[in-house]
Each structure stands twice: as structure tokens, then as C-alpha cells.
């Protein structure tokens, strides 16, 4: 994209995130106002939501990068030291795939808990995440997953007062 003779690239991911936060904030503000415009309802929510929307507008230009700046960016990035308050995601393709795979497995796991039972969900999630992290030996995959399933199901059953739906255990 070209504006005033300069080339810009758009960070669509960041734009989507700002849009998501801004959209969610706007929806929440309207939802709160739809419930009641009483001060007892919107005393904190309304000013905070307006402030958040203002921040979204200020951040919006950061989603557009000048091409010349981007070319200088990698050299600058190297100077940045590790900051645990601002963790960085891995950039290597294999690491990104593993991370994405583990995230997807976690998603399937949490939604499967009530459907297939905690025991089966834990067993398959453990085996899948071990495989994603690099374990290939079938015996270890099965035995370790089984051990994690038995320990966590019986351990948490003894700990928590809520029922845990299981299929086998």
C-alpha cells in the first residue's frame, strides 16, 4: 500500500487483534448500556470502555509499517534482550508447528472432557502432546499416558468435591 509516496505493509494479524479487542469492547459497552444507563451500572465500565477504544485508535497506526523501517527492524531486534514480562514466540517453522499442534490438542482436550470422559480425554491428550513434543517410542507413549491418566484422575477425585465424568476409570 502506498500513502504520500511511501510504501506501507499492513500487519493483518495485529489489525485483526486490535479489531477484536475494539469490537469486543464496543459490544460490551453497548450491552452494558442496553441493560441500564444507571450510574450504578456504568460507573466504571463506560469510562474504561471509552478509554480502551481510544487506545485502540492510537494503536491502529502501529499496524501499518513503512517498508524502509521494516528493513532496519531486524538489526534492531537483535539488540533486544530476553524479557519475561514480554515473552516472544518461537519463529522457527518446526517450533511454530509444534506449538500450534499442542494448542490445537489442548482445544480438543478441553471440549472432549465432557463428551468422552476425563480418563479417555486425558490419555489421548497426553499421548498426542508427547508425540508433538518428539516422543516416538510406542511403549513409552502408552505407558506414560496411562500413568498420567490414572494418577490425575484418582488424585483429583480425592482432592475436589465435584464429580468427574469418566468412561473406564
Amino acid at each position: 500500500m502506498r500513502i504520500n509516496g511511501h510504501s506501507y505493509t499492513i500487519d493483518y494479524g495485529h489489525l485483526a487483534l486490535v479489531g477484536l479487542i475494539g469490537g469486543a469492547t464496543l459490544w460490551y459497552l453497548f450491552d452494558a448500556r442496553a441493560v441500564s444507563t444507571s450510574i450504578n451500572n456504568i460507573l466504571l465500565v463506560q469510562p474504561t470502555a471509552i478509554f480502551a477504544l481510544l487506545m485502540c485508535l492510537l494503536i491502529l497506526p502501529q499496524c501499518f509499517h513503512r517498508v524502509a523501517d521494516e528493513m532496519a527492524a531486524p538489526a534492531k531486534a537483535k539488540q533486544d534482550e530476553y524479557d519475561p514480562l514480554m515473552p516472544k514466540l518461537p519463529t522457527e517453522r518446526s517450533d511454530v508447528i509444534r506449538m500450534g499442534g499442542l494448542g490445537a490438542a489442548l482445544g480438543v482436550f478441553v471440549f472432549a472432557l465432557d463428551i468422552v470422559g476425563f480418563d479417555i480425554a486425558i490419555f489421548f491428550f497426553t499421548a498426542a502432546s508427547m508425540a508433538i513434543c518428539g516422543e516416538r517410542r510406542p511403549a513409552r507413549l502408552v505407558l506414560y499416558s496411562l500413568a498420567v491418566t490414572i494418577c490425575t484422575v484418582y488424585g483429583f477425585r480425592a482432592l475436589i468435591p465435584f464429580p468427574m465424568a469418566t468412561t473406564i476409570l
Partner: protein
Amino acid sequence: MLDFSAFQDALGLMFTSAGSWGWIVPGLIVGLVFSAIPGVSITMAMAIVLPMSLYMDFFSAIVFLTSVYTGAGYGGSVPAILMNIPGSPSSFATTFDGYAMSKKGQHNEALGYALFASTICGILGYVLLLLVIEPMANIVLRIGPVEMFAVAVWGMLLLGSLGSKYLTRGLLAAAFGILLGTVGMNTAGFVRGTMGIPTLLDGIPPIPAMIGLLAAGQLLTLAGKDYILDAEEAREVSVRKILKGCWGTMKYPGVLIRGSIIGIIIGAVPGVGSSIGNLIAYAETKRTSKDSASFGKGNPKGVIAAESAVASAEGGSMATMLALGIPGGGATAILIAAFMMHNIVPGPSFIENQKPMVYAIILNNIVQALVLLVVGIGFIYVASSVVKVRTRYILPAILVIATLGTYAVTGETAGPITLFVFALLGFALVRYEYPIAAVVVGILLGRMLETEFLRSYQLSGGNPLYIFQRPAAMAIFGVMLISLFMTAWGKRKQAKQEAEEEAAMEALHQQELAGRKS
């Protein structure tokens, strides 16, 4: 102040019921192990063992339960330091510098700092409690919504400490966190943002949300690594280094005292507890520290400040419970239940009629803090071994335990689903360099901020001058403003000094050059 005759009776009571001391170690172990499991709170650990205490005599039961409380106060810092997952919200601030130290291979020292800070400040909290239990009760009774609101705002000041590369992104993250924290039914009965989901009436569960946000930033990124710590030498578990960390804590008496005072005061306020105390203690220590730039990057003072507030908050909440019979939080509510199971009602009459027993309970807690030092080192040694296990084994187990921990909080799959949704949000926030910690602080404090703001507004009738009728609130706001002013002044002075030094060096350099030429 201290009643010496009752104190002597308390010592007698302590030594005649020496059998009850045997419950200290099992209680500490139960507390340490349970609270190290993300999602299993101190309250839950105490609730699980409460029925066991029914068959003990009163003093033994209280010794056992308070030992669980003491152990659990420290236990949460172990996963916070080793894996960046706080066992409970009260260990959240420990992750900032504790995990950073772990990443540098200083996990032994970090755990040592946390343990010794917990021990010293646990003792300090109870010694202070021993001296001021009665006047403190009177102070607590004067605390109202305006003061609570001031405390919540003080907690939010932590956001200034969470240095982000982009100020706007940090502020948006905090505001979004606060909004997420207010979802559900507010104190006035208005229901917002629930999308018709009944679970959200009580708001977004903060612990699953917190674990989800942090898990995305740290746990999932471990999938590509062979071990939690890359360097082999960093994976060493060394008692010598743990003790070095313990000893190193003594170098920072100011941090310990500040953290303790904040912890005791915040802990004594019913309904606030250590989850805010650790944030405030961390923020204040960073704000007043000369090396504030190194906070969040593995500064031991960050670990000490957070843990000292958590440990001393226990003394504060016990003061409210013993003196007034009001539970400061879930853990003290369980203790009141234990009192009642033995037909004893804590409160002003209990202190008046059973002062030796009150002193004996406090003295026993001091003993527990000392025993924690020994039991804690053993526990750290075992728990630290987690860094020696390959990621392919430890990561699936941690994720399963964290997920079941969130189920333990909510009692339905809403907990694990919240974890997953916030893991996705956390992933996006990390990707685009938004400070996750700011969202977590917002979620933790949003509800309290709204509730106390609303109550203050209702009490004052919308008149801001009402604050002049609340000296305690004015004092809190005053301390906050003075602290902010002093920091700004100190930084300006430091910058001026640095500029002068630089100018002097430049002048010296010019003189040298001129000397060479002549």
C-alpha cells in the same frame, strides 16, 4: 500491647501440648504439595483436611490447619518460579522475577530467596500480630469501601511497573483486563456481557483465565524445546545454591520490612487478602529501587518483595479472624469453621477470655515458619527436579494438571474452556507484544475496583469531597501520591547526576586531548 502474664501461660500451654507439634510437619507438607498444583487454592487444601481436624483436640486442630495455611502460602511460589504458573493469584507477582531467574539458571537461588522471605516475613507478621492484635482489630473495623477502593487503585499502580515497549498497548491491555474483570452481575445487580451464559453471571473465573494467559506465553512455547531450561548446567539442583539464595535474602532488610508491612495491612482487610498484597509490594519495591530497570529480568528483590507480602498477609488475616471473628478470606473462613467445630467462637470475647490460647496459636505459627525453612528446602529439592525431566514428559503432565486444576476451581468444564479461550487470547497478545501481566492484573482487580467504587459512590452520594471524611482513605491516597512523587523526583535527580557525571567525563576527556596537543 503484650500481656506478659497471658504470654507466660501461653508458653506453658505450648509446652504442655507438645504432642500437637507433631502436626506441624504433616500440615506443612500438605499445604506445600497442594498449593504447588495450579488451581488448587489454599482454601481448597484446608477444606480437604478440615474433616480430619474434627477428631483432634482444639489446639492440635488449629496447629494442623494453620500449618497447612503456612505451607500453602509458600508452595504456590514453586510452580511460579519454575514454570511461570502461579499456584494461586497470591503468587502472581513472584512469576515476574522468579521465572526470569529460572530462565537464567538461577532457579535454586530464586526458590531460596522466596523460602527465606516467606519464613522471615511469616515470623515478622506474627510477632507484630502478637504485639498489636487488639489495636489492629479497631483499625480494621474503620475500613470502608473508600479505603478498599484506594487499596484497589494502589494495586492497579503496578501497571506502571510492567514496563512495556509500547505504552498504548500496555494501557489497552490493562483496560481490557479491567473490562473482562467486570463481566457478569455487579454489586448493584446489573448483568452485563454474559452472552446468556449462566456461568458468566459470577464473572470470568480469574484463575483459569490467568493460567490460560500465562500458559500460552510460556507452556506452549516449550513444545519445541527438549528441556524447560536450555543449558545443561542450568538444570542443576543444588542445596548449596538454595541456601545461598536463603542467605542472600538477608541483604535486603528494607524490602523484607516494606513487603511485610504491606502484607500485614492488606492481609488484615477482609476480602482483599494476599492476592493484592503481593502486587502492591512488588510495585512499591520496584518504584523505590535504584535498579528498577532490572525488575522483571531476574532481580531477587522482586521475588523477596512479593513473597514477603504473601507470608505476612497470613498474620494480618489471622489478626482479623482472631480479634473480630471476621474471615479475611477463604482460608480464615475454614479456620473459623474449625473453631466452631470445637464450640469456640473467635472474636473480641475470645481474645478477652482466652488470651493465653490466642498467644499460643500465634507462637505456634512462629514455630511453623521456622519449621517451614527445613521442610521447604526438602520440598524445593524434590520440586526443582522438574527442570531435569524432558519436556516431552513434563509438559503433557503439567498441562493436564493445570486443566484439571481449572476444573477444580469451577466444578464444570467452563474452567478448562476458559483456560483454552484465554490461551488463544494470550497467544495473540504475546505475538503482538502486549503485556499479558497487565491483562491478568485487570482481571484480578476489575471486580473489586468496580464494587468498591460503586459502594464509595453510593455512600458519598456522588460527592467527591466525601473523601475528606475518610482519613484512612486520604492517608492511602496520600502515601500513593508521595510515593509516586518521590520516585519521579528520585529518577529526575538520578538522571541529572548521570548527566553531570557524563559532562565531567567529557570535560576530562577534552582536557586530556588538549594536554596531548600542547
